[in-house]
């Protein structure tokens, strides 16, 4: 999967916010708030193809978490990103 063209993460007064920018997302009128962990994942998969396994590995690299939990959380956030339309398979 990959982040759809035109979505950009910005940090505004400490908040991580994804907005639709660029011509590809000119009609996207929501803003999405990411927590620290989601922002960390987003930054590391921006501009490339990634899988749930890649997200799991990123979580394991950065956080003190067991693999089963990391894998479950990675799958959950990937599903969420696809559901709200900012990531495509």
């Amino acid at each position, binding site marked *: 999967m990959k982040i759809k063209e035109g979505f950009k993460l*910005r940090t505004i007064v400490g*908040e991580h*916010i994804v*907005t639709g*920018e*660029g011509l590809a997302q*000119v009609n996207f009128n929501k*803003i999405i708030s990411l927590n620290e962990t989601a922002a960390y994942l987003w930054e590391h998969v921006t501009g490339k193809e990634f899988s749930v396994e890649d997200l799991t590995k990123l979580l394991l690299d950065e956080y003190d978490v067991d693999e089963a939990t990391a894998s479950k959380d990675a799958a959950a956030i990937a599903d969420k990103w696809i559901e709200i339309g900012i990531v495509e398979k």
Partner: protein
Amino acid sequence: MTKSYKVAGHVFSFVFPEEHPLWGLTGQYKPFEIPTDPSPLFIVELVESLPVETLEKVYGGDEEPGQPVILLYRRNGGWAFEMAPCPGRPVCGRAYVDGTFSHVRLQILRPSEGLFALNNAAMLVFAFSTASLDTLEMHASVVVNSGKAFLWLAKSGTGKSTHSQLWLDNVQGSHLLNDDNPVVRVMEDGHTEVFGTPWSGKTPCYRNEHYPAGAFTEIVRSPENRIRRKSVLEAYALLYSSSSGFKADPAMSDGLNATYEKIITATPCFTLECRPDADAARVSSETLLKL
């Protein structure tokens, strides 16, 4: 013939033929007129016709009943847009704009709606050309009290103008600065200043005055009157949804976001849940005038 205007410190010019009847309709710009400036930020030039070019539609506009329709196109080396007074009405003006938003060529297709086309072209390009200059064109109604400007923000029809009127009627020392499209600007010392403009929706309130911002307040209709401070995220969402700009342009988007951040840092933002009654003005003024 050229006339120049200064709004929120930014200069633009209109270039029309000397005898053009539209000059006679531009009274709302009069308070902002300055001696002709040799290097304005942008000019709006009236033209009889525009060359036929390939236009690629990039934005169809949110079609809301009764609200102006703006269609945006990409063209070779710049942008084009078309305007209609509301959904279902024919396009009344077409404009070609260069890539840096400094030169607008405006063709009026329906003379009876020429002022509408001029105002919308000027507003759109003002927002675009000032986006990187710590400036936001807001959709808001603004009252001034105790030397500060208080902005009411919401979707059309929610009660921005109504809340301004409630302050005029119930909060002593209030006056209206603008009823639809004020401009806010982050000044060199970091504070937010609110400026009157030649654009004010249906209310003819074209004041060339400016005041430090007291607060940005979102109006939400509710059976209860109550006010609370917004979080950073909520304040961002409010400014993002209430300011003009074109986020498809990376430089413009960076500029707008830098301005949002400065405003959120400098100026408090609130949510006012309210009825359209005098008590609502009491509730908002008791909190906002104590800031």
